[in-house]
């Protein structure tokens, strides 16, 4: 159990790992996540989405970005090593229905958790358009998988090094304005991206689902650390989510809460990257500026 069967580097800071956990491989559904630890005694518990699973091999696939201490330690493990603890599958599965046309937007690492949702939407017979975004070509992941699965794939990069130059909200807006607007939108990526995707679809009243990545501890509905405000009510991402109606989520509060432990955690990140700046945060800043 928990043995790393395969490890692959997708980009500078992004890794794919296939881990043997038969019971999770068997039970998991699109949209669900796991919580893992690299060290049981003192390690942090971090949530990662199950990007894929293979019931025959009894394995799940995780795609993660190295942002802090735990993701860096995880990336240091090799094939054959064991991840100390893996709990799951957690959260409610995505609700996938045949609605017609669905646009799936993935920003940065968000492309990984988006993939099973794209697959599931195809499986029920929806027409799926994927919009993939990243800061530059090197950071773009999953393009090949998406092209194999979706009906249409639009790629954007902030610097124009691959695909269109610009943010994912631009093609999303064009799709909404087109003669064949999506009947539903799913957006997964940095909170700031999900916020602006929701803002983009709001005037068109297109149902927009987002998958929230809050801070979590137990992931079983015991601690309340993952709470967010949705439609004025407090919800718990690990048991009520992770997917919510993007038009109702209070993203500003969520983003501030995610930075609650920033000082202690950026310290950990910096000790791995002498350079200092965290990519996620940089991306978020660009996003915010461009949308002002």
């Amino acid at each position, binding site marked *: 159990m928990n043995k790393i069967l395969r490890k692959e580097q997708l980009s500078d800071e992004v890794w794919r790992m296939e881990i043997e956990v038969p019971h999770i491989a068997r039970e998991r559904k699109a949209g669900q996540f796991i919580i893992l630890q690299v060290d049981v005694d003192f390690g942090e518990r971090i949530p990662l989405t199950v990007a894929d699973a293979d019931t025959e091999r009894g394995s799940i696939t995780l795609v993660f970005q190295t942002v802090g201490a735990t993701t860096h330690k995880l990336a240091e493990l090799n094939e054959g090593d064991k991840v100390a603890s893996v709990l799951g599958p957690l959260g409610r599965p995505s609700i996938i229905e045949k609605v017609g046309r669905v646009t799936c937007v993935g920003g940065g690492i968000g492309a990984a958790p988006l993939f099973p949702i794209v697959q599931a939407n195809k499986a029920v017979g929806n027409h799926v358009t994927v919009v993939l975004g990243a800061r530059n070509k090197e950071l773009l992941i999953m393009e090949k998988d998406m092209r194999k699965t979706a009906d249409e794939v639009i790629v954007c990069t902030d610097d124009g090094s691959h695909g269109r130059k610009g943010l994912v909200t631009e093609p999303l807006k064009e799709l909404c304005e087109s003669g064949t607007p999506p009947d539903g939108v799913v957006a997964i990526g940095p909170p700031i991206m999900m916020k602006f995707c929701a803002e983009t679809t709001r005037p068109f009243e297109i149902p927009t689902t987002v998958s929230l990545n809050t801070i979590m501890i137990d992931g079983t509905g015991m601690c309340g650390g993952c709470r967010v405000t949705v439609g004025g009510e*407090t919800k718990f991402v690990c048991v009520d989510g992770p997917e919510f109606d993007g038009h109702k989520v209070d993203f500003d509060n969520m983003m501030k809460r995610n930075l609650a432990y920033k000082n202690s*955690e950026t310290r950990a990140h910096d000790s791995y990257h002498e350079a200092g700046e965290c990519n996620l945060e940089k991306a978020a800043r660009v996003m915010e500026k461009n949308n002002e």
Partner: protein
Amino acid sequence: MSEKTQLDKKAKVLLEGLLKEGELKAKDRLQIPQQQMPAQPSEERIKNNFEVATGYTEAMARVEALRCLQCVNKPCVEGCPVAIDIPAFIKAIAEARHNDAIGIIKQTSLLPSVCGRVCPQETQCMERCTLGKALKDMEKGVAIGRLERFAADLERESGKTVPPSIKPETGKKVAVIGSGPAGITFAVDVRREGHSVTLFEALHKPGGVLMYGIPEFRLPKSIVEKEIDNLEKMGVEIVPNFVIGRSRSLKSLLEEDGYSAVFIGSGAGLPKFMGIPGENLVGVFSANEYLTRANLMKAYDTERSATPISRGKRVAVFGGGNVAMDAARTAVRLGAEKVYLVYRRTEKEMPARIEEVSHAKEEGVEFLLLQNATKIIGDENDHVTGIECIRYELGEPDESGRRSPVPIGGSEFVMDVDSVIVAIGNESNPLIAATTPEIEVDKRGRILVDENNETSMRGVFAGGDIVLGAATVILAMGEGRNAAAAVNARMQSADSHK
């Protein structure tokens, strides 16, 4: 000389005198002073995480035991949810037959080193004690819990703990969901009958609240780990990181995995919030989150733990139970300069144990009684900067005779704090009920059970906080026992019908 050494010296002198007197009369026993529990001085203990109360020495335990009047009608036993034969074990301690003492306790209680520390004795066994009544002060009754702890610690520290003997294997399998006191007790009792037992736990360490909630300084984790070790020695299989309802459905346990019975001890669930503005600001935590970071994730150990924890300088804790006290005292230990405990009623109504309340006060926690927060205030970054409170007064008595607090209009005031910990209780854990519709729950999500602790789904039993709402360790244990007895009987009759 440390306080403990001094107390021990005094106790030794006293004990020698008492032993010389031969058979003690009731009035002699009434004269014996209650033995104080030695504790780390408050100015020292707030700088560490070690246990506050350090435990009786043998002399102190024997002196305390000699205070017991050995009442024939044993009122104390009625007050104990698991009916430990209290006078018998106390007599054994008085006579220095400590092995006998622990043997008597263990006939009915499985976790004496835990209960001796955390039982709310003042509302249970001690409340009924004749000695306390005679001295017109319940707190002056025989210190039953401290004696229980003494006997249990002595055995554990001797390393000679004998695991219960196990009957020949029956080949039958039973599953337990949750490794809190209810699950542990159930597992032991069923395993003793020779059934094979698998205990599933969602977290990475077994023990339930004993592990993630109650702080190290009140219940050292090494004690809980020892109890878990004993379970494993008995052959109970423990599966951590496995959440029933997600990793596997309850139904599959029964229908596909070959378990003949299941016990649900899944405990309390999502923390309650007050529904006031500002509760999702940065710096507002549920007590569960705060304590889980501190205990289970060992965040107090900044050198080694990867989990961060807020180290507020001015902390307000909302609530008046054990959980609130634990959170407040944890904040003190994490370096807060000022910790306030905001409670709507008066100290008399506080559900926390008397000992916790006085320990919290000694450690500098300031009690703001008959007050309640109405709003949490934040800055432009959504960081907590203060709370708005309102004062209360006690109104007319209601049907139960209790005077409930009513807010005084216009008495609002603002206090500067940088963190808020909400400790006003929990909802029931919803996962099992949500994924197993066959199991009936009440309006508050508590699982409904019959007198055998069996749920509406045959072969599925439940007990502890998931049935009782927020209760106590000893009640959870009692329920585990009750369910185990029913399961064991069911298995036996199934056999005899073959």
